[in-house]
């Protein structure tokens, strides 16, 4: 279910040339901000939680997820070179699963690792905050990658839809309509983080059981459906 060649090609597509620089700019910014904040305010658990929750988990993880998730398959479908991949004797679900693994790995490296580093800089893992948010970022990486990979196979405008979900649904509606938070990967991953963290700095609107079930369901369903979509992929002409 894992093909090294497909993985290598996907890595190259995601991180080749200047793309790694752009992906790397976001984590770098997070770390710079953490250093600045630490220098300005000193170690403070509430501040650390605000930075990690408000910036790392709410903004950085979804955007890295969109870039990695849709970038793993979207450009290939877009320029039609996916037919060369599909004409190889590989199962389509294998292709999807390989690309998913690569996307997850890239999202984790570029979002969870910097979250941990930023957390350590901010308050030296006081109250387990750094670890809690890292776990949340890891969990969210998996779900975001699966979801955005599916979007990449479904639509040519996957990046836009992915961003609409991440920015409009999770950020805007999530802050206005409480019900929208139940259907938000960010909140599900926060529920997992809540379990890890000591104290009540990390909170979520969703219970742990619900969150876990939904996370697993979304990941599995999205991956399965992406495989199905790829089996019956038709290459549309450029609009």
């Amino acid at each position, binding site marked *: 279910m894992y093909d090294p060649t497909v993985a290598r090609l996907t890595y190259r597509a995601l991180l080749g040339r200047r*793309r790694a620089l*752009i992906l790397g700019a*976001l984590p770098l*910014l997070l770390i710079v*901000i953490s250093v*600045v*904040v630490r220098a*300005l*305010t000193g170690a403070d658990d509430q*501040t650390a939680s*605000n*930075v990690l929750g*408000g*910036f790392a988990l*709410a*903004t*950085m993880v979804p*955007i890295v997820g*969109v*870039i990695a998730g*849709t*970038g793993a398959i*979207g*450009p290939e479908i*877009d320029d039609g070179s996916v037919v060369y991949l599909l004409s190889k004797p590989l199962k389509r679900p294998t292709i999807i699963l390989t690309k998913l693994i690569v996307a997850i790995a890239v999202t984790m490296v570029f979002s969870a690792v910097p979250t941990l580093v930023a957390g350590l800089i901010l308050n030296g893992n006081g109250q387990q905050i750094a670890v809690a948010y890292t776990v949340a970022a890891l969990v969210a990486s998996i779900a975001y990658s699966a979801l955005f990979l599916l979007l990449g196979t479904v639509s040519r*405008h*996957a*990046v*836009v839809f992915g*961003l*609409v979900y991440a*920015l*409009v649904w999770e*950020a*805007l509606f999530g802050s206005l309509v409480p019900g929208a938070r139940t259907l938000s990967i960010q909140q599900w991953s926060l529920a997992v983080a809540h379990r890890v963290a000591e104290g009540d700095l990390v909170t979520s609107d969703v219970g742990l059981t619900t969150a876990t079930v939904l996370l697993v369901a979304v990941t599995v369903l999205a991956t399965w459906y992406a495989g199905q979509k790829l089996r019956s992929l038709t290459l549309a002409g450029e*609009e």
Partner: protein
Amino acid sequence: MTVERPTGTPVTTAGDQTRIHNIGYRSYDGPRLGRAYARRSLYSQSLRGAFGLGRSTRSKVLPMLLFAVMCLVAAILVAVTVTTKAKDLPVEYTRYAIIMQGLISLYVASQAPQSVSRDLRFKMVPLYFSRPIETADYVRAKYAALASALFILTAAPLLVLYVGALLAKLDFADQTKGFAEGLVSVALLSLLFAGIGLVIAAVTPRRGFGIAAVIAVLVISYGAVSTLEAIADAQNNTAAIPWIGLFSPVTLIDGVQTAFLGATSSAPGAVGPDTGQGAVYVLVVLGLIAAAYGLLLRRYKKVGL
């Protein structure tokens, strides 16, 4: 490829001595419309394209939806004002674009790449420059088109608010002043956002990547700046807030209008720049717009070949 026709008898009449080959095409002798016309056409096509007009139905969905939501929210605000018989609109004219910045960013991110990335990807740019237009014409037309589209997107809801306010018989002079200030502010915002969007989109031929890069720059910079501002506010370090605001496009516009256009700042604690700092804000905004234009010119000098 021209195929030379075998000529039985070589043409030897005196007038045709210089003609090597003639397969009978007629040359165009109608009016030549020239550079200004080509630039105008490129502008109007790009402007229409920014709202999906003249393109497929699928590409109309997002810009039209964003436009509708922008106006709809304004209409709801007007309806609230009318039914509650309020003395003033619930939202200032200058504040509206700041509240709706997410949608505006999405619009820039989706339309800037569609305006320039596909020309790069299908190697259309040299074809443009085989017409009478020059690099500067292409850049100016594209920049003006996206800025105009953004202006339409951001000024239309202000117009809705203004007309609604007048119908609700709010104070005419007061509302007109607010409306005019709002228009100046969204004009600046349109130029700034269009410049940033186009510079990023012109670097990559991949549309999807362009979208993500534009949104990352707009949203991440705002996220970072507002996080830092909130922390500075919590530390009672309010003097630092206006300086932090210089680092993201939205807060730049917010600062300019707070200093000069009678807006209340949306920064935490409503701490806006004073007049001196406001001048720095204006300089940075104008500098960014000029830099965007310069970078685009440089970029197209290269890809136009």
